[in-house]
Every structure is written in structure tokens, then in C-alpha cells.
């Protein structure tokens, strides 16, 4: 199927999944890259992109659920979904540990998304062949 070299992509998603098409475009780009035999080193969510990591996103049944699509793709191809912790906290995306630390009653980070620092973006950026932003 592939007679071309395998390329490692890092994807930076800065767009809101509920209001911007770019978030879906990023998903479709990843899907196409993986189908072509390439690798996704990881997807890093920043700015309003972090809203993709909420497990409370509940669109109507005839609408697309991007957080679920991202989660399924990450499970299927085994790549990390990293979410910037500072961008997340200011937008109300919280994991169990942060909720405990900040004395918040709830947490809502969807699995397999993980909260991580911007250092993780540096790491992903260093260990890929191409970085794409959506």
C-alpha cells in the first residue's frame, strides 16, 4: 500500500469543536494521514481547542460529536490527545487531580485526553517530521 516514507505528524488544534469547522478538518486530516500509513505522534489542544476534551459535550443525535470521534481515532491508532492544562483550567476543563487540588466539586476531562503542560507541545514538536495547525 505504501511505497513512500512514513511521516510523523504532530497536530496542534486551536479551534473550538462546537463553533469552528477547522477542528473537524484537523480530524479529517489525521484520518487521511493515518489511512495513508503515516503516524500521528500526538495531538495537542490549545486555546479553544481544549474544549474538545470535555466529556459533557452532548450534541443532538443528528449532529457530529467531535470529542468522541477524536477519542475513537486515538484509541484505534494509539496516539496521545494532550490538552494544555492552563488553557483548560481557564475554560473549565478539569481532571480529577486538578478538581481535588482546586477544591472543585466536579471534573469533566474525557478519556483518553490528558492534561499536560506546554512542555509536552515542545516535546511533540521536537519529535515529529511535520507540525500542522488547525
Amino acid at each position, binding site marked *: 500500500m505504501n511505497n513512500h516514507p512514513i511521516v510523523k505528524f504532530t497536530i496542534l488544534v486551536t479551534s473550538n469543536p462546537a463553533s469552528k469547522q477547522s477542528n473537524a*478538518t484537523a480530524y479529517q486530516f489525521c484520518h487521511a494521514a493515518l489511512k495513508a500509513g503515516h503516524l500521528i505522534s500526538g495531538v495537542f489542544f490549545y486555546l479553544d481547542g481544549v474544549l474538545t476534551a470535555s466529556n459533557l459535550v452532548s450534541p443532538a443525535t443528528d449532529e457530529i460529536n467531535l470529542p468522541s470521534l477524536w477519542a475513537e481515532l486515538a484509541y484505534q491508532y494509539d496516539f496521545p490527545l494532550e490538552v494544555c492544562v492552563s488553557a483548560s483550567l481557564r475554560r473549565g476543563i478539569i481532571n480529577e487531580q486538578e478538581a481535588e487540588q482546586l477544591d472543585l466539586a466536579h471534573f469533566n476531562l474525557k478519556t483518553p485526553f490528558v492534561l499536560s503542560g506546554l512542555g509536552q507541545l515542545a516535546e511533540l514538536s521536537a519529535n515529529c517530521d511535520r507540525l500542522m495547525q488547525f
Partner: protein
Amino acid sequence: MILHTVNHSPFSSFALQDCLKQLGDTDYLLLTGDAVIAVTVPIESKSYLFKLDQEKRLFVLQADINARGLTASYGTTIDYSDFVRLSIECKSQLAW
């Protein structure tokens, strides 16, 4: 060599104009999302876009044309797998 991606309509944003100012001599331009509108009607930067097309450096995501009920008058229409290939062919991407 940069793959410039624009996703805003030329009628509501300066993104396309700003991008064209910075486009290098060998760079590619890919219109996605609302930016596909640019190749469906006469706009101010049409002659520049047309030149890019002649040089095979203008690409348009077909799915975004179809989704909006539009027809591209020029530009190389591509699918997502072509998008992946372009991103590999270019050294970097700049999203406008």
C-alpha cells in the same frame, strides 16, 4: 517552502490578503473552509490567485466547495489525502 492554509472568506477577513503578501515564490496556497469562496467569484486578488494556479501552486479542498454548493472556477481541487501529501511536500505549514 511553506504550505499556507487559509480558512476565512475573502469577504469577511483579511486573512487571504495578508497571506498573499507573505507568500514566497515557491510556496503553496491551500484554501479550506470558508476560504474556498475565493475561487468561486471575482475578487480583488483574482489575478494573483490565477497566476498561482497557472504555476500549480493554488489548491482548493473539494469537500469544502461541495459542502457550500459552490463550483471552483480555477485552482487544483484536492481531497484530504492530497492535503496530507502537500503537507509532506512542503517543509512547514502556516495557518491563516
